[in-house]
């Protein structure tokens, strides 16, 4: 049984979201669910599955570099009663396998959990072919798939356990690198579809997801020093979205902000925009994310900087918009 202790939080942070998911949480899931299967497309070691492969070789399938086949094999296993986690880089599992995801997970609702690692810009010098900036937009348009996006490695563990318990297809979007900054330093209740308010006070509300939750908190700290109080809400579930949390925020905020390591088109910002339009409320929304462009690649920090996603840049963008209200 996994223990949510401070030393474990620190260990998981060092492993990153992917390492915590596949190096730690899957062992707990394997104990609870004897019919667990993990399927990958040639990414066993790079997914942090080394220990699992050694200890549970009968529960592990590597289909080779054949992502579409991986989804088909996973759906077949799921339809035979297995709980299946299928994993590779997020760009390959969502884009290369898009039709299989749509048909097997969306249409047939096979109980497969697809886990995309290296989402966003973290793949660095692997370049734009390996960046994942459109996945939320694509997957959330497919019916019946729950979409989860952990804020840190501890939440990655929580999400792994929750996904295993959830009856139905899930897409888990893993962001950030090793030494993933810690958002959570104490245990907390996690529930799919229920956003977490991390900073409760302020008349600006920032909705953030994945790696950007930490940066949003740091931006809020910068702004607090300037006298602007900012709420921060962790949207770990993109679909189904926590409409109540967004509605509540529209009632107490002068400005809403969305922050995501995803294209500004179709991701979290779009979800929030759709909600407030549906509510019929008129609160300005500043959408911060990856620009609608393929830029020169570089290391992770460089990539974030090119898109204005470092804490100082987020704070500056929010301050400018707030002052202009």
């Amino acid at each position, binding site marked *: 049984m996994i223990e949510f202790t401070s*030393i474990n939080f620190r*260990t998981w942070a060092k*492993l990153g979201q992917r*390492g915590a998911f596949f190096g730690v949480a899957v062992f707990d899931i394997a104990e609870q669910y004897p019919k667990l299967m993990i399927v990958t497309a040639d990414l066993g070691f790079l997914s942090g599955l*080394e220990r699992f492969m050694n200890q549970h070789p009968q529960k592990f399938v590597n289909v080779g570099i054949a992502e579409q086949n991986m989804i088909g094999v996973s759906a077949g296993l799921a339809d035979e009663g297995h709980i299946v986690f299928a994993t590779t880089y997020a760009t390959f599992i969502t884009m290369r396998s898009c039709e299989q995801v749509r048909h097997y997970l969306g249409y047939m609702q096979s109980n497969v959990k697809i886990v995309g690692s290296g989402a966003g810009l973290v793949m660095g010098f692997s370049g734009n072919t390996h960046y994942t900036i459109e996945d939320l937009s694509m997957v959330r348009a497919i019916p019946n798939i729950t979409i989860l996006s952990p804020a840190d490695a501890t939440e990655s563990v929580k999400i792994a356990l929750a996904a295993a318990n959830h009856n139905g297809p899930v897409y888990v979007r893993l962001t950030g690198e090793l030494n993933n900054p810690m958002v959570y330093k104490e245990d907390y209740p996690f529930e799919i579809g229920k956003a977490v308010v991390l900073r409760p006070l302020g008349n600006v509300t920032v909705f953030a997801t994945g790696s950007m939750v930490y940066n949003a908190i740091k931006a809020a700290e910068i702004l607090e020093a300037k006298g602007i109080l900012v709420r921060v809400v962790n949207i770990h579930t993109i679909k189904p979205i926590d409409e109540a949390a967004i509605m509540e925020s529209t009632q107490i905020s002068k400005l809403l902000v969305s922050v995501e390591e995803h294209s500004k088109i179709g991701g979290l910002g779009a979800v929030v925009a759709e909600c407030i339009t549906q509510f019929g409320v008129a609160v300005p929304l500043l959408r911060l994310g990856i620009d609608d462009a393929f830029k020169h690649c570089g290391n992770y920090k460089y990539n974030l900087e090119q898109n204005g996603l470092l804490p100082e840049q987020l704070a500056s963008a929010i301050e400018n918009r707030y002052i202009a209200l």
Partner: protein
Amino acid sequence: MDTIQKYKEVFINHLQVTEDQLSTLTYQSVSTWDSVGHMGLMANLEDAFDIMLDTDDIIDFSSYVKGKEILAKYDVKL
């Protein structure tokens, strides 16, 4: 407890090895020191010595002996 004993005990407790294995202990030389065990070892060393290791040092920490060199950079005298 003196510093070197504390250093030894982190390895012994976390990697489940004996004291006589330490001098030749390297990354992946025992099953418990795999990639997951490595990060747990780093977190436990940080906790024991109240330090924060840089990512480069975490990657460079390839053996019990090499670890002594690395911790010296953090004023941990072993």
